């Protein structure tokens, strides 16, 4: 039981990664693909969070804690904060490309988008 708990959170991150990849591979619409990409990116949050987590550690805010309290790792959390904002900007830019593709090609199925072929 203990060894299961020790690896299960990491496995969830891998599972979410594979889910996102599955969505991208089987997608028939570019917006669906963008959403799948967003799901894929969340796997990194889950992995980072679980790596930095500590049993019985407090949240890294010392406003109402004595400074010597045992806390979870704040560095991975700073990384995740960056990651989340960058995800939003990447999605915004990719969505602009999707709108442009829709205006120019009239379709959004990746198989029908002739202009995406080299």
């Amino acid at each position, binding site marked *: 039981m203990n060894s299961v708990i020790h690896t299960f959170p990491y496995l969830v991150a891998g599972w979410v990664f594979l889910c996102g990849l599955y969505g991208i591979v089987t997608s028939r619409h570019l917006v669906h693909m963008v959403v799948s990409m967003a799901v894929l990116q969340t796997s990194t949050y889950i992995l980072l969070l679980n790596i930095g987590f500590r049993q019985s550690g*407090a*949240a890294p805010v010392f406003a109402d804690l004595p400074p010597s309290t045992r806390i979870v790792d704040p560095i991975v959390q700073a990384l995740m904060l960056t990651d989340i904002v960058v995800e939003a900007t990447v999605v915004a830019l990719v969505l602009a490309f999707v709108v442009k593709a829709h205006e120019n090609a009239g379709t959004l199925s990746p198989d029908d988008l002739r202009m995406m072929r080299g």
Partner: protein
Amino acid sequence: MNVWLLASCAVGLCLVPCAAMCLQGSPERRLVGLEMTGTIVTLLLVLLTMGFHRPILMDLPLTVAIMSLAAGLVFARFLEKQL
């Protein structure tokens, strides 16, 4: 493990029917599930804040409460008019 955390476990189980609502069915049905999720998540975060003995984190349930109301309005409008 204190009584707040026990309560939050019980409220957390209420997310399962929300998942059932949000992950299948028509968009309207999902929107209803989403609104319910907003309420339950607010309650859950309040309970967890109390359970961790960190009242300073009470900003989060406040954010969820405000943002889920706003997001619910916007989503409803888009479902009705634009989509």
